[in-house]
């Protein structure tokens, strides 16, 4: 960096004195910074707003704080509607001593996790249709135990099967801001590979059984949470 750095303040004010962050706004930023720094678990925008006295927009303040930390050793990450400070991912090599024994997932569990993440809310039968094999109870149990997967309510179809989805803990673990950030999510969607609404013969390559598997497409309305 050879030129004098433009600071975020410069950018925000654009030379306009009236647009300067007020002392109050700076104080609000300090408060958010302190609370988020102290916490280990992500905090929701609403939880954070409760610490603010003024009517300032917590969301806007958080985005400002996030921008401030963008190039730093610690980042302010957005996790769903929650926020948390986390070390920058490129510095992972520094922190190997803190590395915890990572949970190892079987190939089946990992594949099931991916299917749940990309296709949620998804029933067990739908997972099985994609993988082409039965999902063992142990696999779903394992995923529920990790707290990365949760039950998302029953689908309003005969038999009212349970659907599964991912949690904020999942987003936090994989450093995802939202499900839209899942690797390749957009490409997969465009290729029609995340479409649940498939012709009946998609479900099983067994012509005799094909018609039993006519599933209604999933709407959000189907999910009773």
């Amino acid at each position, binding site marked *: 960096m050879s030129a004098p750095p433009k600071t975020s303040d410069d950018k925000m004010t654009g030379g306009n004195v009236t647009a300067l962050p007020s002392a109050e706004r700076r104080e609000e930023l300090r408060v958010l910074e302190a609370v988020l*720094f*102290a*916490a*280990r678990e992500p905090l929701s925008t609403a939880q954070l707003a409760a610490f603010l006295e003024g009517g300032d927009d917590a969301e806007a303040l958080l985005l400002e704080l996030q921008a401030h930390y963008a190039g730093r050793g610690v980042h302010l990450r957005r996790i769903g509607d929650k926020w*948390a*400070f*986390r*070390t*920058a*991912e490129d510095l*992972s090599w520094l*922190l190997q001593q*803190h*590395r*915890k024994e*990572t949970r*190892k*997932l*079987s*190939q*089946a*569990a*990992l*594949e099931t*996790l*991916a*299917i749940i*993440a*990309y296709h949620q809310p998804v029933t067990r039968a739908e997972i099985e249709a*994609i*993988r*082409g*094999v039965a999902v*063992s109870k*142990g*696999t779903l*149990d*394992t995923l529920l135990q990790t707290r990365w997967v949760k039950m998302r309510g029953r689908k309003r179809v005969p038999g009212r099967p349970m659907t599964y989805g991912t949690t904020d803990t999942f987003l*936090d*673990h*994989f*450093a*995802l801001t939202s499900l839209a950030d*899942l*690797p*390749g999510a957009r490409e*997969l969607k465009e*290729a*029609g*590979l995340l479409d649940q609404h*498939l*012709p009946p*013969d*998609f479900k099983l*390559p*067994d*012509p005799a059984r094909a018609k039993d598997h006519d599933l209604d497409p999933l709407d959000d309305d189907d999910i009773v949470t």
Partner: protein
Amino acid sequence: MSSSPSMSSSTEEFEQRQLLQLSKSRTAATEADIMQVELDGYAGPLDLLLDLARNQKVDLTKISILALAEQYLAYIRKARDLKLDLAADYLVMAAWLAYLKSRLLLPEPEPDPEAEPTAEELARHLAHRLRRLEAMREAAKALWDRPQLGRDIFPRGMPEPVNIRKDVTYDADLYDLLRAYADRRNREAVQKVTIRKRPVWSIKQARQRLEELLDLSLSWAPLDHFIILFATEPEQRRSATASSFAATLEMAREGWLELRQSKAFAPLYVKKKANGKKNET
């Protein structure tokens, strides 16, 4: 081999393992919760199909389903030649692919919207399923390669927890206070009446006394007489009568005394049997 009787009850898993001896080594889905190097093999027929499709070394969108069906059927045939037990779902897939193959080879009839899907459509759908499975496999890998909390990125090492201090204030008014005091004093001031514990005769106690007394009496005697002998206090009599009556029934059933009564509510007579045996024999 797999046809031996001891193996005939083999599970589907076992059958898969048999099939999989044919296939190259790879990890597969497992019931186990943790990753482990699993039995070599495929996680079902779709997995096998996907592996065969990859061997065509073309983009899955350009896969030849006809060629794939033939490869799969050849694979299954080979497995059967080796007399391997095949899991049912592999065979169902084989049957379906044979059907699809025959339809792909036959000239298509005129398209009829009422009819079942055309062979072309079925083939496209199968290709789509394979692409979807592969996409999810790749997504799973990409997901796992992401920075992970506790592996690549870390939370604050010394979080400073929020202390929630509860300030409890208690509430009470003077009336509640005086009422509580007066009620207690009223209760305590009323002279204390102690209700004496009423002695209760258990059936066991009654029986013990009756046995002692009946040993001394050789002829018929009213039960009441015995009760008066051991239940000396009038207030004990009710309990003693009930217990003694139950005890005599028990003793009569065991066959060591006789009971006699002329009519309802008449005095009950008891007599020890001449050869009556005691309870403990």
